[in-house]
């Protein structure tokens, strides 16, 4: 029997045919290693398990559909065709579709973006801007027909209806939604005439909320000069926008409650201030009256007390009035009170003492002449602050 001699090419072609026809499109699970992204956009890697490995290629137009990034160590399931590459005599898998093993691809993409932005510092507390306590104009970025805007309007009109809501309507899901949301954030920053932004939508599936997990939205929130509250979905859903926003609200209604104080509560605060101001002023008047009284009490100076009592009476009149009426009285009497204070100050021995003089008493009498004293007499010396007893050592001449 004559030997059949193949050429390398013909043998390879035959192997290729056998191999490629006996393995129609199939699914393989394995771990990625030696991952490389070529500048052409095609992806190359090896899929391996404990016992074997197989080369894989994923062409650019398929690779572009991946939501997450491939990396060594990632466990994946690929849908692929077996192919023999004749030039190098290798067989490889041409990957049509690739998904993470044991976890959804959106979930993986979420985790990857979260990690990336966290490492870049987009979630830093120090970058977060304070939310204004009493915003008067609120910018809202959401669907014009969704539950979110309805809920926000209802909360605001219940709590503080004179707060202005300005909506920039966007699509919140589907193709292009992330781009619209990011642009709306930039537009509000350019427009400038709002105090705070609420970006969000009502709850939904991970797919529905996906726009809020896209990098474009995260970066627009991060660069916003206006403070941003992210309000996506229901309590339990966290999105990337929640992490990067200045504040996260569990729902759109909660976001509105966060920024808008309750009107009734604030009216109560106003009443409280009115009362507190009036009381403080009343107390101040009382203090001054007390101060005058104590000056009169502490010094037995014989002065035209009459004048002082008259002025005191005026102060009493003023303070007898209610605080609000008092304001009008005080406006007129302000000047007079100030005069009284000046007069009292000039009259007061305290003023004299404060300049460094002291008063010398002997047996309760003010010593005005050295003849009142004998050597070794005990005298009492009163200073601006405090007093002491002193013994006369030597007497000088009287002038």
């Amino acid at each position, binding site marked *: 029997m004559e030997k059949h001699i193949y050429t390398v090419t013909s043998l390879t072609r035959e192997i290729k045919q056998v191999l490629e026809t006996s393995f129609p499109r199939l699914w393989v699970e394995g771990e990625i290693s030696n991952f490389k992204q070529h500048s052409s956009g095609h992806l190359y890697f090896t899929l391996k398990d404990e016992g074997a490995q197989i080369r894989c290629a994923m062409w650019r137009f398929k690779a572009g559909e991946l939501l997450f990034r491939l990396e060594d160590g990632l466990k994946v399931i690929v849908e692929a065709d077996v192919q023999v590459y004749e030039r190098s005599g290798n067989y490889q898998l041409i990957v049509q579709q690739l998904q993470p093993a044991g976890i959804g691809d959106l979930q993986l993409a979420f985790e990857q973006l979260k990690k990336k932005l966290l490492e870049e510092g987009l979630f830093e507390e120090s970058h977060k801007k304070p939310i*204004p*306590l*009493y*915003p*008067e*104009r609120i*910018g809202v970025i959401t*669907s*014009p*027909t*969704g*539950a*979110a*805007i*309805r809920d926000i*309007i209802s909360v605001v*009109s219940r709590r*503080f*209806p*004179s*707060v*202005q*809501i*300005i*909506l*920039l309507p966007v699509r*919140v*899901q589907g193709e292009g939604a992330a781009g619209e949301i990011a642009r709306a954030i930039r*537009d509000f920053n*350019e*427009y400038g*005439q*709002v*105090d705070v932004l609420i970006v969000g*939508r*009502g709850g*939904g599936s991970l797919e*529905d909320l996906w726009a809020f997990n896209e990098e474009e939205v995260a970066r627009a929130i991060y660069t916003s000069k206006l403070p941003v509250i992210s309000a996506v979905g229901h309590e339990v859903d966290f999105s990337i926008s929640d992490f990067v926003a200045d504040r996260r609200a569990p729902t759109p209604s909660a976001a509105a409650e966060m920024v808008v104080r309750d*009107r009734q509560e*604030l*009216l109560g605060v*106003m009443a409280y*201030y009115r009362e*507190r*101001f*009036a009381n*403080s*002023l009343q*107390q*101040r*008047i009382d*203090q*001054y009256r007390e101060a005058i009284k104590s000056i009169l009490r502490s010094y037995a100076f014989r002065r035209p007390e009459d004048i002082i009592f008259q002025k005191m009476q005026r102060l009493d009149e003023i303070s007898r009035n209610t605080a*609000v009426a008092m*304001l009008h009285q*005080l*406006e007129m009497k*302000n000047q007079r009170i*100030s005069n009284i*204070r000046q007069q009292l100050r000039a009259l007061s021995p305290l003023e004299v003492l404060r300049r460094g003089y002291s008063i010398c008493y002997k047996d309760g009498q003010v010593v005005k002449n050295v003849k009142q004293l004998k050597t070794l007499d005990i005298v009492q010396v009163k200073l601006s602050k405090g007093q002491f007893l002193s013994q006369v050592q030597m007497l000088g001449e009287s002038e």
Partner: protein
Amino acid sequence: MKKGQSFEQAMNRLEEISQSLESGDIPLEESIKLYEEGIKLVEFCQSKLTEAEKKVQKLTRTEEGKFETTPLDEPDTSEAE
């Protein structure tokens, strides 16, 4: 929002006034001035609080790239999100 006095500025000033008035180390004349200012601010805030409900506005860009706001029609509640 930079136009005129804001509610927030007024609230902050009210707290300052309240503290100054209570600290007790300012002259009487000053107390009276602060009292007057405080009452004016309280009235300003009360008027803001009792202003009528504002219609929700919609922000749009005109063809020239400027912004304008127009009243928003009541959101259609029948359509699901």
